[in-house]
């Protein structure tokens, strides 16, 4: 019997079953009392109406073509920078050693 009552409260009965249930209810006072108890429970649950904020998630859009080139561009700049640095360093090393050799030659001659 309780199952029928819960089905009625939760709206699971079709039209014919609902009519049959109501007719039964009309004749059975015990059933009425039980229905009241379940209905109170079912309706009590509606007190919990809290609304909670939905968090914002940012959907990441695909990286633009220009932005994707940024890393490659930076890499090329770095390689060129290293090349220039190496060239200048080597040149100054060569000129310094040339100067040392020249200075040594002058010293020996003297």
């Amino acid at each position: 019997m309780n199952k029928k009552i819960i089905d009625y409260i939760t709206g699971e009965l079709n039209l014919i079953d609902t009519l049959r249930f109501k007719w039964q209810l009309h004749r059975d006072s015990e059933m009425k009392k039980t229905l009241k108890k379940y209905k109170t429970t079912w309706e009590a649950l509606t007190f919990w109406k809290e609304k909670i904020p939905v968090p914002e998630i940012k959907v990441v859009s695909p990286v633009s073509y220009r932005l994707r080139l940024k890393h490659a561009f930076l890499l090329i700049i770095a390689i060129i920078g290293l090349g220039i640095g190496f060239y200048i360093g080597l040149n100054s090393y060569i000129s310094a050693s040339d100067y040392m050799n020249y200075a040594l030659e002058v010293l020996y001659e003297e």
Partner: protein
Amino acid sequence: MKNVMNVESLYKNYGRMLMDISYRITQNQADSEEILQDAFMELWKRKPVGAVVSWLKKVVVNKSLNLIRDRKSIAIENNPLRAPDGVLEDKEKIIVIKRALSHLKPLENTVVVLKRYHGMSHNEIANILGITDNNSRIILYRAMEKLKDELKLYF
């Protein structure tokens, strides 16, 4: 780009409803936020074919259910409540309801939430939880029996 738009519009249209399902099952805002984001991440990775909303509901419900199963019990504010014969304020009523729901088994809690707060049919609930219609009905009967006993002192 089209996928991004789709996920965004799904989130805008169904985010609140999915968050509500998760929050009512887990009763924890941080957990429900995480579950919601996980579900959308999964959607992004898998790109399910067919009814995406039903798929999202399924993912959110099952993730929430697994979480409360792992957690064993739901943490509820332990505010002292007035004697059962006194009149409760709305806030206290909410605590009583949350506490009563947390005393149910995870599956019972989930069925009650889906039925009461989201008006789903037993068929829909059964599809989401991977059980039969009849099983869903029986779980609701059991849950109602427990809730009736627990809430009768306050309502």
